[in-house]
């Protein structure tokens, strides 16, 4: 798979469906609970009723295979990150999705994470 380099070229064009239509006009959610790196998957005991929105259905189907980050859900579905945040937030609230609690950022935690990142990189590429 090739990706043309330098994706940051900005394109300004009317969307087929503007993002706030997909979110029923909801505004962007508070970032702290659902970041790019929040890991989600389908809930073990989801409600019997399926969500009606096609985009929510897509997210649920995608998440059925295992854990993905919100960034990956956006990448796979082609939906903007802000929209995915809202959909995931809703789906989690409705009990369809399970989100791993984010690790609080603190120096002690960073120290541990850096240690693990270094060990992992060395084990894999060293």
């Amino acid at each position: 798979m090739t990706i043309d380099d330098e994706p940051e070229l900005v394109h300004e064009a009317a969307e087929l469906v503007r993002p706030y239509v997909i979110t029923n006009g909801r505004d962007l959610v508070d970032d702290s609970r659902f970041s790019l790196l929040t890991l989600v998957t389908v809930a073990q005991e989801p409600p019997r009723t399926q969500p009606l929105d096609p985009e929510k259905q897509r997210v649920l189907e995608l998440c059925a295979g295992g854990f993905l980050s919100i960034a990956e859900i956006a990448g796979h579905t082609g939906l903007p990150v802000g929209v995915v945040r809202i959909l995931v937030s809703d789906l989690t609230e409705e009990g369809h999705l399970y989100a791993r609690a984010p690790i609080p950022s603190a120096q002690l935690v960073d120290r541990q994470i850096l240690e693990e990142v270094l060990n992992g990189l060395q084990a894999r590429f060293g």
Partner: protein
Amino acid sequence: MGSRLALDDGVYLRNSVQTAAKILVVGHFAVGKTTFIGTMSEIPPLRTEEVMTQASAGIDDLRGAPGKTTTTVAMDFGRLTLSEKLVLYLFGTPGQQRFVQVWEDMTRGALGALVLVDPQRLEESFPVMDLVEHYGIPYAIAVNRFDGTPEHSFDEIREALDLLPETPVVNCDARDERSSADSLITLVRYLQSRLN
């Protein structure tokens, strides 16, 4: 699963993964960020789109050209599972000042940044250096050498970029896994040293 969207097993994270960490791969246009991420990622790199409201958006824009009140910025990212519990995401982040809104989002929770520079176009790295410094993100410099690039001494690069003595500078061939991994390792060691 018959779903269209059900993907290969390799796409999903291991169930045991608890922590997701993030390192930014930053640099100016066409410096090799996407190549670097493609080299390091265990999944085909993905692209996210952030819809930004333009700073200039106002009544005139709304009235005149409704399709132009938002701007889409695309970013490529990749993933590396580093242990049973830990996954590292590498986000390619554009270095232009007009993307500050994206930077606010990207820098939150980032461990650090690898700044890719092209030794022949060092001055193009100034805006991105301003951004990492403005957001207080610790960084290392990876000099992406293309074939036929004349050797610049690290001293020249340090001077041109006005680096602190402790900021690491390494050579990096973004097409080469080993070389790219080494520059990440250098960054992580530097990040560790800052905590001591």
